[in-house]
């Protein structure tokens, strides 16, 4: 792998809600076009890390740099920075009183002040890409969870961000709908998008990631390419984590076959 441009850099990040650190001494570099998947047990700080990058949570130490410029020095125009950092949430968070098209156009029209015709053309093209063009005039309540999440991804893409953050975007979905969302993300990864993904879908993580970051107790425990991470984890902690998933998936399969 040749020397690539570093898009996002996190240096010794420290996050504290006031009762002990949630994230401690986190350092991470994300190169342009790279896909990094954050895994780890619930409550390990993965989602918090994403929220810090987007300025939704203040940090108590360290710094975050986007395109080599520090965005955590207190002088940041977050409105501008956030346009470069797209985020997709677990609970979709579409605007319930707006149609699909209005949902994805709000950012481009009201924040970026783009021309309606041009933004609309892009919206239709992106909706078509995720297979939802026919739903453009529907309201969120008329969509399935998977469809809502694909709209939420389009909404983030409409801002033409430099990096996309995915915060457990399939965690609230019915199992059959997980795939359609992951397929969209896989396609984005293949087309060269820079992505930072928090997920519990380990198989997906293995397929999509350039690097896997394992977080536990607010620390980065391990950082490796997917092959090494899944086949020869260095630490005991990751080993145990991966094992619980094997058990979990086996017992799920068993329940599944019983119910049939």
């Amino acid at each position: 792998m040749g020397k690539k441009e570093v898009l996002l850099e996190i240096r010794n990040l420290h996050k504290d809600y006031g009762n002990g650190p949630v994230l401690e001494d986190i350092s991470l570099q994300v190169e342009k076009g790279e896909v990094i998947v954050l895994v780890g047990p619930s409550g390990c700080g993965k989602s918090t890390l994403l929220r810090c990058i987007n300025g939704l949570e203040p940090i108590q130490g360290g710094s975050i740099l986007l395109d080599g410029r520090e965005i955590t020095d207190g002088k940041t125009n977050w409105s501008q920075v956030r346009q470069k950092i797209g985020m997709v949430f677990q609970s979709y968070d579409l605007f319930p009183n707006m149609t699909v098209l209005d949902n994805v156009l709000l950012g481009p029209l009201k924040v970026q002040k783009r021309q309606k015709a041009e933004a609309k053309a892009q919206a239709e093209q992106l909706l078509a890409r995720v297979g939802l063009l026919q739903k453009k005039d529907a309201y969120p309540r008329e969509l399935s969870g998977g469809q809502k999440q694909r709209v939420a991804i389009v909404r983030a893409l409409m801002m033409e961000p430099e990096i996309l953050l995915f915060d457990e975007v399939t965690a609230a979905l019915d199992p059959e709908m997980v795939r359609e969302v992951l397929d969209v993300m896989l396609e984005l990864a293949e087309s060269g998008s820079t992505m930072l993904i928090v997920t519990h879908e380990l198989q997906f993580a293995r397929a999509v990631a350039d690097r896997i970051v394992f977080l536990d107790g607010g620390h980065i425990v391990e950082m490796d390419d997917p092959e090494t991470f899944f086949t020869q984890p260095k630490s005991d902690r990751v080993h145990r984590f991966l094992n619980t998933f094997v058990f979990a998936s086996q017992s799920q399969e068993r329940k599944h076959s019983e119910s049939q």
Partner: protein
Amino acid sequence: MVQMLLEGTRDTLYMTLMATLFGYVLGLPMGIVLAVTDKNGICANKIVYKVLDFIVNLVRSVPFLILLILVIPLTRLIVGKSYGSTATIVPLVIAAAPFIARMVESSLKEVEQGTIEAALSMGAGTGTIIWKVLLAEARTSLLVGVTIAVGTILGYSAMAGVVGGGGLGDIAIRYGYYRYETGVMIVTIIILVVLVQILQGLGMMLSRKLDRRRREL
């Protein structure tokens, strides 16, 4: 008599609608400020919130009948006299604005935090979030609030009859209470009930029409 009741109805409607209008002119911005400056709001500001919160509570804890008399000097200053339906609008607005502010605040706080964060994550500024997310998404709840406000103000306006405030309440007190003409009083009550029903029905119909969140339209 019919003429008088018609005029009374007209005066009551005039007071109620004008007071609602001006009540919102004052109360809506106050409610927005309360919602966005509270601790989880997009412009959290403890001092601003506490001050406004205190003012709202203060005015809300004065019984309307007392307020009516208390603000007579102010009413004279603004309208030039202290009786009649136009003069009654002043205390009505003062009583209604904090109450409206509270309802607006609670409506806006019902908007999912997630949708606000989604807008923030796209780089939306405070103004965009207030207009396009908070007010747009809370519109059903806000309209229900308007309906409640109209009903409450209508009731208050009748109370103003005690001090010669004009409208149906005035008629009910002058004829029903001072002259023992129970019939007139009952008729005014019936008219008031019908008015409330009509206004309530209109408000609810409109808010249902604007609600895109539910399936059963």
